């Protein structure tokens, strides 16, 4: 007992010492440069590791590019981005805790984690710590309806994900389909997406069936398909993530569910979607935050096409919209720093509020809740294994193929 | 025998599937008696004990403890009614010291102390009684086979039972170690405790029992004076035949 108690004291003391000894990295001040320390907690392990890595790549690309061009100075010093990464293992509590640790080290500027749950937790902490965060990975509306003022999201809101595809079909599909079936994962984000889609579809006069839900990240959506099969919908819209998205297409084939068209959120613009499904992926519609034909340009990355080329050269794979979102978030941060002529979190926050600019990512302009609601989403279609932008018409690379039979 | 018997069973039976492990066992044990229970392997001796102590629920019949119907009662209720037991396959509490093993029994005795320190002190007395003095701080798994048997015995004694059922406490003991155990059983009787001894060691049973009950195929074959029972040809036939003879030879 005695000995154990002593070891307890020793361990407590040791922990105390180590924690006191944590280094508070001051803003390094080399001659002529001003280092901007930015904290980024991203999921590098766990269920969101894949998207987390894409997010990190996007941030890294931004840092390299911005540091290389060095387009403005503050007080005569050129800006150097220094982004510190921490793994949050795909868990909201760690995503939040990492931000507080950044705060300890004086990092007030934050680039977000990936996933609505993670970003939701982060947004609360950002408010408390008076940090300023640009969000590239959490689009769920319920992050932005809480009155937070320090989180800014470069993405189009969740309600646009399915809506944009409904609008595209309304706009381009001939003969026009009649009946829409919505299949959805049961997480908050996907449900918001579905609700938005149904609202738009009804407004445009389409018939909508009751949405069918399945567990988030399931690889078996057969129950939902069996339920809608008899009603023969013309279009199946899936609010899904990658795994459910692939399952939806595969199992539809297996079960003989044959609508005129499939449209899915999130999954189709991911590169593996086409390679995983092969011919089954052909002509599936998807909504994307960004494509290489997105309209707009900025002084760091040029156009979306420039971005795509340079990114592919730097990372050896095509840029996905997750990469672009992350870069865009970082870009919004940089532009606001330039505008504020300061790296103070409050001044950057003020600059973000009034930011209104074009970029390789399209419009970046935050509404009062901090969402980039004026940015339209693009609709893509897998055509011959390639991700082709088909809507809005202005950035379309090819015509939407319609209808198609599976 | 106008007194209420400490233990009485009426038509006690237990059926496992289509097998009658024990059937129609009726007998009674008056206060202060040492009853020996014998029978060949599979005769239902352990099942019988388990039926009395509530570890197995009977499918027929009744169990009365000091006149009270305890049929189907939970083992702890039977323990609290003053019945203690040992297990044929010893079940010491391995995570605790030998003293603590005993102390648990003392703590959970209805009229006992609730304080561990007191219970530990009392445990030392029990350990002394069974010949484990000085072993109190060891772990059961560090004891010799004989000492583990003693511990099993001591655990049963800890709750100061009025009836104690000993399931082969002498199995595996050397002849020299059997003597002290028998003395202990006699001492229990002297203190007024009723004892039921289930044994394979025939010599021990004969030496200590006031009466012997013979189980065969789950039924009572006969009950009576040890020497008379052992001399009975039916008993010799079902059970003792070669085994007892062999043992006698080996012991002489």
């Amino acid at each position, binding site marked *: *007992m*005695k*000995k*154990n*108690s002593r*070891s*307890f*004291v020793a361990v407590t003391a040791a*922990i*105390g010492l*180590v*924690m*006191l000894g*944590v280094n508070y990295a001051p803003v390094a001040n080399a001659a002529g440069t001003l280092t901007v320390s930015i904290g980024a907690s991203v999921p*590098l392990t766990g269920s969101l590791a894949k998207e987390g890595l894409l997010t990190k790549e996007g941030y890294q690309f931004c840092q390299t590019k911005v540091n290389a061009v060095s387009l403005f100075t503050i007080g005569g010093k050129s800006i150097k981005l220094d982004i510190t990464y921490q*793994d949050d*293992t795909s*868990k909201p*509590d760690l995503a*939040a*805790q990492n931000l*507080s*640790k950044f*705060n*300890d*080290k004086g990092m007030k500027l934050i680039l977000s984690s990936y996933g609505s*749950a993670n970003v*939701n*937790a982060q947004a*609360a902490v950002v408010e*408390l710590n008076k940090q300023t965060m640009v969000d590239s990975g959490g689009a769920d509306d*319920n992050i932005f309806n809480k009155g937070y003022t320090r989180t800014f999201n470069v993405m189009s809101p969740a309600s646009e994900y399915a809506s944009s595809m409904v609008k595209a079909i309304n706009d381009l599909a001939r003969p026009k389909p009649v009946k829409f079936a919505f299949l959805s994962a*049961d*997480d*908050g*984000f996907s*449900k918001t997406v579905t609700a938005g889609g149904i609202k738009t579809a009804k407004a445009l006069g389409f018939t909508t069936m009751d949405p069918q839900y399945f*567990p988030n990240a399931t690889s078996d959506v057969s129950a939902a398909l069996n339920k809608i099969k008899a009603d023969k919908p013309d279009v199946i819209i899936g609010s899904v993530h990658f795994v459910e998205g692939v399952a939806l297409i595969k199992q539809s084939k297996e079960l003989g569910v044959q609508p005129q068209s499939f449209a899915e959120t999130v999954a189709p613009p991911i590169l593996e979607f086409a390679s995983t499904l092969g011919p089954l992926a052909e002509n599936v519609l998807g909504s994307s935050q960004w494509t290489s034909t997105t309209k707009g340009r900025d002084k760091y990355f040029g156009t979306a096409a420039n971005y795509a080329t340079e990114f592919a050269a730097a990372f050896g794979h095509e840029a996905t919209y997750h990469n672009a979102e992350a870069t865009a978030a970082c870009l919004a941060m940089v532009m606001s720093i330039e505008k504020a002529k300061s790296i103070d979190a409050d001044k950057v926050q003020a600059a973000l509020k009034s930011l209104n600019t074009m970029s390789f990512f399209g419009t970046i302009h935050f509404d009062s809740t901090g969402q980039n609601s004026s940015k339209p989403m693009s609709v893509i279609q897998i055509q011959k294994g390639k991700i082709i932008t088909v809507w809005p018409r202005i950035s379309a690379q090819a015509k939407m193929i319609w209808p198609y039979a599976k | 025998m106008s007194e209420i018997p400490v233990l009485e069973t009426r038509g006690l039976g237990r059926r496992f599937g289509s097998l009658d492990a024990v059937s129609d066992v009726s007998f009674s044990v008056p206060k202060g008696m040492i009853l020996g229970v014998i029978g060949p392997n599979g005769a239902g001796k352990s099942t019988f004990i388990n039926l009395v*102590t509530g570890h197995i629920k009977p499918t027929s019949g009744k169990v009365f403890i000091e006149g009270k119907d305890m049929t189907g009662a939970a083992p*702890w209720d039977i*323990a609290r009614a003053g019945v*203690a037991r040992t*297990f044929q396959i010893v*079940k*010491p*509490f391995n995570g*605790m010291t030998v003293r*603590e093993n005993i102390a*648990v029994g003392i*703590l*959970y*005795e*209805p009229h006992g102390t609730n304080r*561990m320190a007191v219970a*530990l002190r009392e445990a030392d*007395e029990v350990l*002394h009684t069974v010949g484990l*003095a000085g072993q109190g701080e060891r772990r059961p798994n560090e004891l010799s086979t004989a000492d583990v048997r003693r511990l099993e015995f001591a*655990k*049963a004694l800890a709750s100061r039972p009025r009836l104690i059922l000993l399931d082969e406490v002498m199995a595996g003991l050397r002849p020299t170690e059997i003597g002290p155990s028998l003395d202990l059983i006699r001492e229990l009787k002297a203190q007024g405790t009723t004892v039921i001894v289930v044994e394979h060691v025939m010599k021990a049973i004969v030496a200590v029992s006031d009466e012997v009950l013979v189980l065969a195929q789950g039924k009572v074959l006969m009950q009576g004076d040890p020497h008379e029972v052992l001399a009975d040809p039916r008993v010799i036939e079902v059970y003792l035949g070669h085994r007892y003879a062999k043992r006698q030879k080996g012991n002489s």
Partner: protein
Amino acid sequence: MTTTPEVKISRNLLHTWIPSVVAVLAVIGALILKSHIPGGELRAVATIFMFIALSQAWNIIGGFAGYASFGQVVFFGMGGYFTAVVMLKYHFSFWVAMPLSGLFAAVFAMLIGLPLLKLKGHYFAIATLGVAEGMREVVINLPDLTGGGAGISVPIAGTFAKTQYLGDGGFYLLFLGLAIFSVGIGTLVSRNKFGYGLRAIHQNEDAAAAVGINTVRSKVMAYGLSAFMTGMVGASYVFQQVTIFPERLFDVEITVLMIMMVVIGGSGTVIGPLLGALGLQFISEYLREHFTSGHTFILGLIIILAVILIPQGLVNYIREGRRTKQYSLLTNIRRYRL
């Protein structure tokens, strides 16, 4: 009888005040530490406290009674959701909601415990795991009450917030309090009749019943107590996190962490789970910060080594060593190898 036991007992009594003094010093140390570390570190240390409380809670049912509650997180989740719902919908103060959450979890545990605690070993483990996974589904499928997959947010400011957000320092103290409370309960249980009854049940239920222990009642009580503590921790976690989601609140990994901490520290002891929580949480936090891509790999290695070298847990290893004067790790390996 002899005089030796008397001496031993008085020595034991002497021993009892040393841990108390150490405990008081540790608490004072923790309070001093609070004013010396910044918010993020406070949060990290609060998480350590949280796991101390959780591992102590698990230790009651898993360590003492030997029932491997693999679904322990269900009480964390239900306690958490109870608090979130009553704070959001009924405007409860957190200080009322928290103990109620504990009670809610305890009552639930005792209800499911009646049938489940008849199961043994892995079967109990999987059944409790089933309850946890099932309850998560229930929470997801009751969106009107729980917010479903979209999560639920506790009011922390404004008119609906009866209790203002505590801040990093406040939660540090709250979790410290829970840790103290749980270590206190653990100490009490480890020394009293109830705790010895549980240990006896752990070793052998038939033998425990034979000495008069009401095994059913003891197990159900232990499960309830364990759930009570876990539920209160869950409630506090929810308040700290503000917005919560079913995936995290019913995350099986939280259970696994509790078990790891208890087993590596030394199950069935009080100091073991405490050290386990402290050590493991500290190491994993350190690794995560310094080895961004390889931290789980290293943590896995550490766990494997710890399990092979000191399978009985740190505290039990030291205790055995002191008793038998045998510290060799090789003998230790020999004990459980084939």
